[in-house]
């Protein structure tokens, strides 16, 4: 199969060093300095974003603060400020929406969108870059990738950082792939790399030139077919999957590592609120725990009745917690709900007035919506805002 000969109209936009750059935009005294935004500024705190100058020194996302300080002792460490990042995300989204009716925010710092046919993607990309500098902030730079499908547009956006603008099309695909390692490709890491090695694919060009049957051997039937289409510039990732899980997780700092019940309580408040805002109730709950020695435990349970209130959610999660062998020194605590139904169809119960419970929950949600989440909350929840702080998750929004 030849590469897709259609004109490139898919754009992938990525904000460079997102959180760190936004902090440097807000505080000009931090510009052109190594800055990191980290979950905690303590030595074991995880780095969420490193500025372009910090990256030049070898400091990367995911490192610990102490490792960054070993590289550059004077590094500036900042705590995240989620409202600021959400504001910039929305400001860039507004600009991008002027050029496309189909914009998909892939995460807080990534957008993918299709341009109408006949529009020049390079011209539009340059204009978007200019407008971001003028309307959002002069220090904020974005890398833009252009191609015929989302996958290659993302690859293109990673090729030149910061402030890049790269197109992958049928004319340069071989040249681009010849300079890339297999593991540079999105979605090809350790396990997929060994799958490809097993069928004799050692380079990115081998991968591109492989016949479909070889990719089917590596990834299985449909998986191999999808990879084949994806690499040849055909769109196969244009779908929206139905949300199957609502949940929240939290990695407590060492001094809060034993405060599991207030943390569970706050996670339940947050998850329950999100569930009800989407008019859903759940019939499944899951709890996952990891301690600081690396032990991991999780358990899910299908429930006999549907739940929507924070109280019921918390009761079920606490029941799961009783089964857990991990009781102290937590590194990560995650709760989730699954198997959803519409909250409009409430099942009446013999011993409980479900309509009264719904009315009470609605009233509490109304107050929390007006005055801020956690204005009214379960007594078991710590009102200390430092127990489960506002965070922005990695990945899909």
């Amino acid at each position: 199969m030849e590469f897709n000969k259609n004109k490139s109209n898919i754009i992938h936009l990525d904000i460079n060093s997102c959180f760190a750059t936004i902090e440097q935009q807000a505080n000009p005294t931090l510009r052109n300095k190594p800055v990191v935004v980290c979950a905690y500024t303590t030595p074991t705190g995880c780095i969420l974003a490193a500025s372009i100058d910090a990256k030049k020194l070898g400091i990367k996302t995911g490192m610990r603060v102490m490792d960054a300080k070993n590289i550059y002792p004077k590094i500036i460490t900042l705590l995240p400020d989620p409202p600021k990042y959400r504001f910039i995300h929305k400001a860039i989204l507004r600009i991008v929406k002027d050029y496309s009716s189909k914009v998909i925010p892939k995460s807080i710092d990534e957008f993918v969108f299709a341009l109408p046919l006949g529009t020049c993607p390079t011209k539009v990309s340059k204009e978007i870059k200019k407008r971001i500098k003028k309307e959002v902030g002069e220090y904020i730079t974005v890398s833009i990738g252009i191609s015929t499908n989302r996958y290659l547009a993302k690859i293109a956006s990673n090729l030149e950082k910061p402030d890049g603008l790269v197109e992958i099309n049928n004319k340069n695909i071989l040249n681009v792939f010849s300079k890339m390692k297999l593991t540079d490709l999105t979605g090809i890491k350790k396990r997929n790399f060994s799958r490809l090695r097993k069928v004799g694919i050692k380079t990115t060009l081998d991968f591109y030139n492989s016949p479909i049957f070889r990719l089917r051997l590596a990834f299985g039937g449909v998986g191999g077919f999808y990879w084949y289409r994806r690499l040849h510039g055909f769109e196969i990732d244009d779908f929206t999957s139905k949300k199957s899980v609502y949940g929240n997780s939290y990695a407590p700092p060492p001094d809060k590592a034993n405060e599991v019940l207030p943390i569970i309580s706050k996670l339940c408040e947050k998850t329950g609120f999100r569930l009800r805002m989407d008019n859903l109730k759940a019939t499944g709950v899951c709890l996952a725990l990891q301690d600081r020695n690396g032990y991991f435990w999780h358990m899910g349970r299908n429930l006999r009745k549907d739940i929507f209130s924070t109280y019921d959610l918390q009761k079920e999660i606490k029941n799961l917690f009783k089964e857990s062998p991990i009781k102290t020194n937590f590194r990560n605590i995650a709760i989730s709900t699954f198997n959803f139904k519409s909250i409009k169809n409430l099942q009446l119960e013999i011993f409980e007035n479900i309509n009264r419970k719904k009315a009470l929950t609605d009233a509490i949600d109304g107050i929390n919506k007006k005055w801020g989440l956690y204005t009214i909350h379960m007594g078991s929840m710590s009102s200390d805002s430092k127990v489960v702080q506002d965070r922005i998750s990695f990945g899909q929004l």
Partner: protein
Amino acid sequence: MRNISEKVSVTLDSDTPLSVTWKNRDYKITKIGLRHNYYEGKTLVHIFSVLSNNLFMKLKFDTKHLSWKLLEFSENGI
């Protein structure tokens, strides 16, 4: 960087802060780094990240109480 939460008075030109008075001292705003807003419940708050020469200040304007607060300040990013 120091986190505080102290009331300040701010002189405006239309909706742009020109100077901040804090502890009986005036600070002329030389640059606005970022202006963003968000809701605290149903109250809209505006945050101004500004510079007064080398002094960085983060100011919060509460649109319900029409009051200003200084949230953070730092000199040369420290």
